[in-house]
């Protein structure tokens, strides 16, 4: 997982290059580097560390160039040290390459090159590329030829780009399985791993497909297929993300900003094209087994969806974490894979879809990034339109996906006649009220959550408990706590307590219990029972509930009382509380909220 950005123009492009790579930093940020052209000489700067620090330390912004590449790295091969940082140059220093992906046959290529007396300076898979380019250029005296020869030797996944002193006003790039696109401006052209690399300059993008390469200069570009070598006519995709929404505004962190955007997300989801949702509902209806697939947060979205489909549409859909898909799914022509992914590049989920395709199963996906690998691979895609999510911690994207799942389940329930038109309209009305409800809770309860979080920020172990649909909410809320605050939090169904877990209850371990509204009688009773079990052993319980009458009752050690809401949306409200609890714990502990350790925005490695 890495980010690539590149710019070629008439004027000095170093500022634009910096902005571009900074916007891609969420893709990984353990090291950074740039390649610029100083006259006819390549200028390489690179080091470990975050983009901003690197640019400041190396004083990159004082340099001038009309062409440049930048790279932010998330290590997969080789340690995080300077010599493993991109860009890499050829032995003669005439090619500078940046790469995202994994060259699976790099050992063989490397051994061959070493045999030919090439000296390698790094442990990375990428370094074979500049050496191959140099080798083939020497042979053919033609850059394009050298590039195509090299590309055809590479196995695995890549999005790569290079500049060379042999043609100092062109960027060469190519793509297989890792994302890459061009940004088309007047007299200035960009390349980037995604839109964020150039969204401030142009909304016109050309999305490269697998097996394509492009040669880009400031006033022209050409896209060709590197197997057939034929030119490909590419349509220009208009991006309608507003660059302003990519910025932080007055918020201290993107995570909080994105939590505050969630009311808007519900409205966006309600505006999605019903026929798209119906198509997915029909696919589920026609299949023997439809698997819900996601990994990490999106697996919890899948689990959430499982409850929703069961209660609203009366169907049982197995949910499988996509990294476990291989060993569990039994696929055939009559099966379906419904994948959930924010980036649309998630490696494990991509593999699950490929497995489905191989078995001729139907595939569909809910994703946030158009033009992403998953979006283009499946039979039917639902774009959730959540806009860019910059914080590495997913909040609004996952939240929107849950809302999308409710809508699909409602459509399916209507088709399968499990709910009446009246019930459907009532549920839809609850969803329409949801933005206002969340906005109020954010505005009237944040301070309480902040106080609870800062009072208990030193707690090292939490149990997150919920029953029924509140169980996936507990899982997801606990994951937020782990990801952003590095605090051990274990999501668990309330019913598990008496099967062993109660033994853990002591002064050191705290519990959060997500309590359904009273209308949900059975679930409510069962959840309260879990609370009592912990309290009977003098455990600390933070109760998050909608029950005003419970106030000051001795049931909880601490409580957060929410206003009454329709039962359909209650779990989503609880999720927002869980997100804020994690956020404020992280800020109390002074964690790096938007860039937590050991986590990348989209995990494109297996």
């Amino acid at each position, binding site marked *: 997982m890495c980010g690539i950005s590149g710019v070629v123009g008439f004027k000095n492009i170093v500022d634009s290059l910096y902005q571009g790579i900074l916007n891609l930093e969420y893709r990984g940020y353990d090291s950074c580097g740039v390649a610029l052209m100083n006259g006819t000489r390549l200028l390489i700067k690179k080091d470990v560390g975050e983009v901003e620090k690197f640019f400041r330390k190396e004083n990159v912004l004082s340099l001038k160039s009309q062409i440049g590449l930048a790279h932010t790295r998330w290590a997969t091969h080789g340690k995080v040290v300077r010599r493993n940082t991109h860009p890499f140059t050829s032995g003669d220093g005439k090619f500078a390459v940046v790469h995202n992906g994994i060259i699976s046959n790099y050992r063989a290529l490397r051994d061959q090159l070493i045999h030919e007396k090439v000296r390698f300076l790094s442990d990375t898979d990428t370094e074979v590329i500049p050496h191959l380019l140099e080798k083939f250029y020497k042979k053919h005296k033609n850059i394009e030829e050298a590039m195509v020869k090299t590309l055809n030797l590479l196995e695995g996944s890549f999005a790569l780009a290079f500049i060379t002193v042999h043609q100092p006003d062109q960027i060469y790039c190519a793509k297989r399985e890792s994302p890459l696109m061009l940004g088309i401006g007047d007299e200035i052209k960009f390349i980037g791993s995604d839109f964020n690399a150039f969204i401030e300059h142009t909304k016109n993008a050309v999305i490269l497909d697998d097996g394509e390469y492009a040669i880009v200069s400031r006033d022209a570009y050409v896209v060709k297929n590197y197997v057939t070598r034929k030119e490909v006519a590419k349509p220009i995709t208009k991006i309608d993300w507003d660059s302003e929404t990519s*910025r932080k*505004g*007055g*918020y*201290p962190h993107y995570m*909080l*900003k994105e939590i*505050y*955007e969630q*009311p*808007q997300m519900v409205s966006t989801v309600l505006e999605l094209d019903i026929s798209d949702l119906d198509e997915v509902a029909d696919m589920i209806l026609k299949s023997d087994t439809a698997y819900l697939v996601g990994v990490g947060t999106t697996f919890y979205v899948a689990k959430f969806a499982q409850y929703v489909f069961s209660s609203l549409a009366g169907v049982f859909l197995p949910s499988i974490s996509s990294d476990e898909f291989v060993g569990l799914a039994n696929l055939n022509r009559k099966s379906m894979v419904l994948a959930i992914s924010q980036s649309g590049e998630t490696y494990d989920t991509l593999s699950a879809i490929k497995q489905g395709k191989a078995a001729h199963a139907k595939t569909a996906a809910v994703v946030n990034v158009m033009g992403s690998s998953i979006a283009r691979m499946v039979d039917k895609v639902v774009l959730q339109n959540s806009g860019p999510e910059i914080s590495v911690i997913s909040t609004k994207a996952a939240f929107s996906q849950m809302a999308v799942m409710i809508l699909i389940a409602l459509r399916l329930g209507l088709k399968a006649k499990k709910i009446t038109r009246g019930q459907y309209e009532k549920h839809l009305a609850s969803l329409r009220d949801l933005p206002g409800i969340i*906005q109020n809770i*954010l*505005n*009237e*309860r*944040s*301070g*309480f959550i*902040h*106080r609870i979080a800062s009072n208990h920020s030193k707690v090292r172990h939490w149990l997150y408990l919920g029953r029924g649909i509140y169980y996936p909410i507990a899982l997801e809320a606990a994951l937020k706590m782990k990801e952003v605050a590095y605090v051990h939090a274990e999501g668990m169904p309330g019913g598990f307590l008496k099967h062993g877990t109660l033994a853990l209850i002591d002064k050191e371990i705290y519990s959060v219990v997500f309590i359904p509204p009273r209308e949900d009688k059975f679930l409510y009773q069962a959840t309260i029972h879990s609370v009592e079990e912990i309290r009977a052993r003098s455990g600390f319980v933070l109760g998050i509930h909608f029950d005003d009458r419970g106030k000051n009752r001795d049931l909880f050690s601490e409580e957060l009382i929410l206003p009454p809401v329709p039962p359909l949306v209650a779990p989503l409200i609880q999720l927002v509380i869980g997100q804020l609890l994690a956020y404020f714990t992280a*800020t109390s502990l002074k964690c790096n909220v938007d860039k937590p350790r050991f986590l990348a925005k989209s995990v494109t490695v297996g």
Partner: protein
Amino acid sequence: MKAVILAGGKGANLGPISATRPIPMIRVGGRTLFDNTLNLLKSAGINDIFVVVGHQKEKMIECISEYSNNGLNLHYVEQKTAEDIGGAVLQVRNKISPGEFFMLIYGDTLTAANIFSKTQQSFHSFKCPVASICLPPSNEMFGNVFLNAHMKITRIIEKPKGDELGNYVLSGVFILSASFFDLLEKKGRSMEKALKSLVGEENLRASMWEDEWLDIVYPWEILTANRVLMDSWKESSIAKSARLEGNVTIQGVVHIEDDVIIKAGAVIEGPCSIGKGCYIGNNSLIRSYTSLGNYCSVGYGVELKNCVILDNTRVGRLSFIGDSVLGEGVDFGAGTMTVNRAVDWKPISVKSGNRPINTGLLKLGTFIGDKVVVGAGNTIAPGTIVPPGKVLAPRYTVGGK
């Protein structure tokens, strides 16, 4: 950008400490709140500063005229009558040109990190009036600033009733345009109404502040301010002219200023700050979060802990001062004890006016005004307030009157 600091407030609940000085002149962690504000403003690139003075204005004016932080243009404006905040703001009306934006700062708030830069950044991205907001540390202060997703403030409830609402409060830093003065006039010089009117016009954005923030309302919050500042310290400094005798132990981060004398056997546990010319007697124990003003004298075998002691105060031998604030020129006789907890470990209450206020603190000592004399052998109950100038008779067990 010009800045306006409101430094005229009385601090009615701040008890004996603010009775004899403007609130910004309270000195914690070796510097006044005013000093702290000016330093942050300077590093935020704000150099033109108007200070509105009122309560105990002579002290503030003296400080401003002697102030020598190069690069800052400091001016003061006198608040004629004791008015509320709106009136104070209007005092600087003729200092701000039409169309100009200025920063407005409440002088009794404190942050260690730079809230002014942050507010300026938000202003630059919104290009319209901005109010800094934060989540307050205690429940009592909860206000309610309602926001939409674009950081527009949609409603302000200053002091919500009951405990139903808990959210951001205004943190006393604003960036406003000169037209705000007209608005203030129109709204009967009421700051609250003028702000609400800005909100009504959908013309006030929020800048969220997440670092520590304090509004110094009650005397025990002086101790919190002290702690917040000291926690931001990274390195020690000991003046060349300070004289440390043999066997003095220093741990943690300490600031020891010119001409300090520390006698043999003393133990100094940082973070703590010892002002110019202080004398620390043999075998005394200065524990963390102690802030000693200039020219204080601490006798043999004294223990100090989490306390703020202002200039020229004398603490007699074998005394204990903990979780307390002592004013200027206080004279503590030998063997004075500030008891800092209840026997039953219940939270300590402090009588402010006629009402006891529960501080929620399990450990709290006393608050002593300027020039109080405490005779030897007194034991002072937790949460006691002694007004300036009072003389407490010594307590003898044998003899005496």
